[in-house]
């Protein structure tokens, strides 16, 4: 029975983490898939948006919905700046992202000085977490699950996914998807692809800003040191999801949209993270396990020996 309970907690935790990360991951569809740029700006725009949100709420007394909107706008603006660096200043897109992340990271430190807590009861999750606690208290054996938080996150994820997929099928969205692969064809159709690309960076980072704010609100605090490396996390999860969708699900004739495959990638990622946690793996090892696990799942095993033989002949 205890095993069943711990499995519930295990699954609940993986789902919450996956859905919390979803808005942030969704930005990869715009930046990595459409614009074909691994946008490092997200390392800075995520934390800047969260910092702006907390400053507006705590120091300026602004209402939460408005503060979230301002945070999303800050993410959008941060993306526009990277876009302008790439398109107008012709700086390598990877470098432009890194430089802008430096700037945004410094601004975040200036704003909140390392870390700042949300006032208790002030965030999106305060009421939901409280309800979850009341719900869990009725359950046996100290079982803690989050039906309220999960329901909210599922609705949010579905709404975001539908919105992004819908947008990418509109004329403007299709142009954005095409802008990363062939600008000239679009330019000859009279489309200003420079503007499209800059706005694309903006949209991707608006999603990052929202994701960063959401995660910080769930944590109850903004910690600047937590965010560098976000791009590595997002890239790995996105590629795991897309590759898994391509390799594994193809066998079962299931096709997933790029946005849905992100959920699959995040579930796979958090499964191993949570497993390391559950089995008290020493803190140095989880990343090693994650890497080995993903290698094992994604590696093309068919004809591996033939490929190894050919390497040495």
């Amino acid at each position, binding site marked *: 029975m205890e095993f069943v309970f711990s499995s519930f907690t295990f699954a609940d935790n993986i789902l919450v983490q996956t859905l919390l990360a979803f808005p942030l991951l969704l930005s990869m569809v715009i930046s990595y*898939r*459409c614009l*074909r740029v691994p946008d490092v700006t997200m390392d800075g725009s995520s934390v800047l948006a969260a910092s702006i949100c907390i400053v507006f709420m705590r120091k300026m007394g602004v209402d939460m919905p408005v503060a979230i909107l301002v945070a999303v706008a800050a993410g959008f603006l941060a993306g526009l700046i990277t876009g302008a660096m790439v398109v107008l200043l012709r700086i390598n897109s990877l470098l432009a992202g890194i430089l802008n992340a430096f700037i945004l990271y410094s601004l975040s430190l200036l704003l909140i000085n390392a870390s700042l807590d949300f006032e208790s009861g002030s965030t999106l999750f305060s009421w939901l977490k409280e309800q979850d606690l009341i719900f869990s208290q009725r359950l046996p054996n100290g079982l803690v699950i989050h039906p309220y938080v999960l329901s909210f996150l599922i609705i949010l994820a579905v709404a975001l996914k539908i919105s992004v997929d819908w947008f990418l*099928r*509109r*004329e*403007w*969205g*299709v*142009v954005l*998807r*095409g802008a*990363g*692969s*062939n600008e*000239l*064809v*679009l*330019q*000859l*159709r*009279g*489309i*200003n*692809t*420079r503007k499209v690309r800059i706005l694309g960076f903006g949209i991707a980072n608006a999603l990052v800003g929202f994701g960063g704010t959401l995660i910080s609100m769930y944590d109850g605090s903004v910690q600047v040191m937590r965010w560098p490396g976000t791009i590595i996390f997002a890239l790995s999860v996105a590629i795991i999801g897309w590759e898994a969708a391509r390799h594994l699900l193809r066998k079962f004739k299931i096709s997933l949209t790029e946005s849905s495959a992100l959920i699959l990638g995040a579930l796979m990622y958090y499964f191993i993270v949570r497993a390391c946690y559950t089995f008290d793996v020493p803190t140095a090892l989880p990343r090693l396990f994650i890497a080995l696990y993903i290698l094992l799942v994604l590696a093309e095993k068919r004809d591996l020996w033939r490929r190894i033989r050919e390497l040495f002949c």
Partner: protein
Amino acid sequence: MNSSAELLSFKNVSVRYTEGSFSDRNALDDVTFSLMQGSGFVALTGPNGSGKTTALRVISGQLRPIHGSVLLCGQDVTDEPSHKRHGLGCVFQRAIDGMCSSLTVEENLCLMLVDGGPNLLRPLVTPFRKKRVLDRARQIVSGEGRHTSLLADLKGVLQRYPAEFSGGETQQLCLLALLLQEPPANLVLADEPTLNLDQVNRQICIEMLVALSRVATVLLATHDKELIDLCGRILRLEQGRLVRDSETV
């Protein structure tokens, strides 16, 4: 079509690449010519490195001349970006360069029917646009009697991506896209469009180019003898200079 109006004017155009093998001389050197509307096929010939592709890139706005001016329909577009040069279409030597590889065939073709800039809320693929694409393809196939062509089964391949097709098939899709273009192109720049194609695909593409030449002037950079024979005028470049401008019978 008003056949007496000037379509393209290339006035004393010189181009120098700042990087690469051309840095010691101009890739185009004081080239002047003009094309009238309704000229049909015009050939741009010359040996490799003579400046044919460079001339096409200057017209499409990918390269800026260091000297001279380019006029399209009487409007000076020398310093205008590519998206401000209306009424142009391009066919490339590498057929895939004429398509967005991240979009499906259907999206690539429907994109040609978007008139007046992309809309934020309107879907790109609509039943009306899809019908127009399929009708045009059917029209080409029945007109030319090419039932083996990719276009004969276009409906079956609309959801696929351009990279899944051979060079000849992709070139057919690019030419279909140009035939669909709204508003129609009045100048098509074709850079070796039949190079590396097998006999069947080459013939289909030539027939589609002929269909294009009925509605637009097609400036062809080519070595293909059969294509040159179709041209009413031949411009010959050598070492970046226009050495011959001749009308053919």
